[in-house]
């Protein structure tokens, strides 16, 4: 089996952002520039997540997806703020191949069922945000902000039974921290379902990748910070950022990257694929 390497791009308004624990967002740049670079470097898929859509009840991803899909020919999963079958249709028309659904599915699980019946299970990714509290993993919504009191292991069975074709499993505790994937969470979830599981949240260093390959059965690994910081260091064209409004982080990027340096090793797609191969798994070359 070939392990897929998937950069995740968190989107706020027109910008690529990244937070810690899915909060404290920083603007990094235009998502399609990062996306195109990752495509060229050999990313196996891409995930776009509109991280505030659920909160503000709006859908503005369509234009960004359209622009991205013009010159990128790998699967693109888009999530954030999807509430209806019509929303799914709009995103697929714009260029998404799959949609990731979390908040709306918690409130209305039939959306997964309906989506799978109309567009096929391969199109419906269940995004699950797991947070460890009171001795168990609880499913969260609205990008890790809201509790649901749903047990993650029960919820994952439910979404698979409803027809979800893949699980995008985020550890809210680890996201953006660079402390490594939550191996126990990923292992337990992959063992409990028959559909592919994408591990996400916490990847910061090469050993995190080695560990997730050797100690879990994740079908795909998803990361963002390591790729974005690598992009910023190697490819940032300052012209691109002049037009932006909130670019405090970019202006101070040197300092900020130094700040994260102890936790984050900047890596390109090929660096990650090399580590996966060395850990004994296969990657697309």
């Amino acid at each position, binding site marked *: *089996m*070939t392990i*897929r390497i998937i950069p995740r791009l968190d989107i706020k308004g027109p910008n690529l952002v990244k937070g810690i624990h899915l909060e404290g967002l920083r603007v990094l740049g235009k998502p399609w520039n990062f996306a195109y670079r990752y*495509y060229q470097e*050999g990313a*196996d898929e891409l995930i776009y997540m509109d991280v505030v859509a659920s909160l503000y009840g709006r859908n503005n991803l369509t234009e960004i997806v359209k622009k991205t*899909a*013009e*010159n990128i*020919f*790998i*699967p693109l999963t888009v999530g954030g703020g999807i509430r209806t079958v019509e929303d799914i249709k709009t995103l*697929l*028309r714009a*260029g998404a*191949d799959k949609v990731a659904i979390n908040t709306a599915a918690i409130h209305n699980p039939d959306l997964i069922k309906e989506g799978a019946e109309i*567009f*096929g*299970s*391969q*199109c419906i990714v269940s995004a699950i945000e797991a947070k460890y509290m009171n001795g168990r993993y609880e499913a969260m919504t609205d990008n890790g902000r809201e509790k649901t009191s749903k047990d993650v292991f029960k919820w994952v069975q439910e979404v698979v039974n409803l027809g979800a*074709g*893949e699980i995008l499993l985020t550890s809210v505790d680890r996201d953006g921290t660079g402390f490594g994937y939550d191996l126990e969470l990923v292992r337990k979830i*992959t*063992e409990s*379902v*028959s*559909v*592919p599981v994408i591990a996400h949240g916490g990847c910061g260093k090469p050993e995190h990748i080695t560990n997730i390959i050797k100690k879990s*059965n994740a*079908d*795909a690994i998803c990361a963002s910070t390591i790729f974005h910081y690598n992009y910023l260091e190697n490819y940032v064209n300052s012209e691109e950022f002049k037009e932006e409004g909130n670019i405090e982080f970019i202006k101070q990027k040197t300092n900020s990257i130094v700040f994260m340096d102890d936790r984050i090793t900047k890596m390109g797609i090929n660096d990650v694929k090399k580590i996966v191969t060395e850990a004994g798994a296969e990657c*697309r*070359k």
Partner: protein
Amino acid sequence: MKDQKITIVDYGMGNLFSIERAINYIGAKAEITSDRLKIANADKLILPGVGAFGKAMDELKERKIIEAVYRFVESKKPLLGICLGMQLLFTESFEFGHHKGLDLIKGRVIRFRDPDPNWVNFKIPQIGWNKIKSPGEEPWDYWKNTILESIPTGCFFYFVHSYICVPENKKYSIAESEYGKDLYCAVINKDNVWGCQFHPEKSGEAGLKIYRNFLKI
């Protein structure tokens, strides 16, 4: 290449727009249609498809597209089936019951054998990248003048499927892939009828190459 047009059959199944974008990207025109005359008289035809086999055949019947596809194939111009669109080219499928296909290529569509009891190593559906290779010990230029021309053996493509095509005559399988316990047909060709089990429009530069080759055929 600029004036070349590829017609994509629209029968309500699957995402046709990513195929359209790929065709536009390589500099050809794409026409998405369910019009029988346009299908029958196309220069080059793509039969796409994502979803269930039985429903797809029902949709084709309901739109009265099947006859148009047959007429197109009789014209000897090239037809390319993609994913479910490739499976529909075969005689019959055993996906959720038993369904008759277009029967342009003799053979069956069956489910992957259950890979392992605990689903750890190979899951169904296969979702992801897999290598294709020429069947047997073929010469290096085996794929010359096919849609796979100048694609290296061992090249990766993006697959999403639970069912596989088994042609009666193995010689029509010009590329194979391996998944779980199955060595299966990844690319089929009989005369002017072609099919890819994977999605070229989602397989990066190698996938775009397949569309470029299809234009040249």
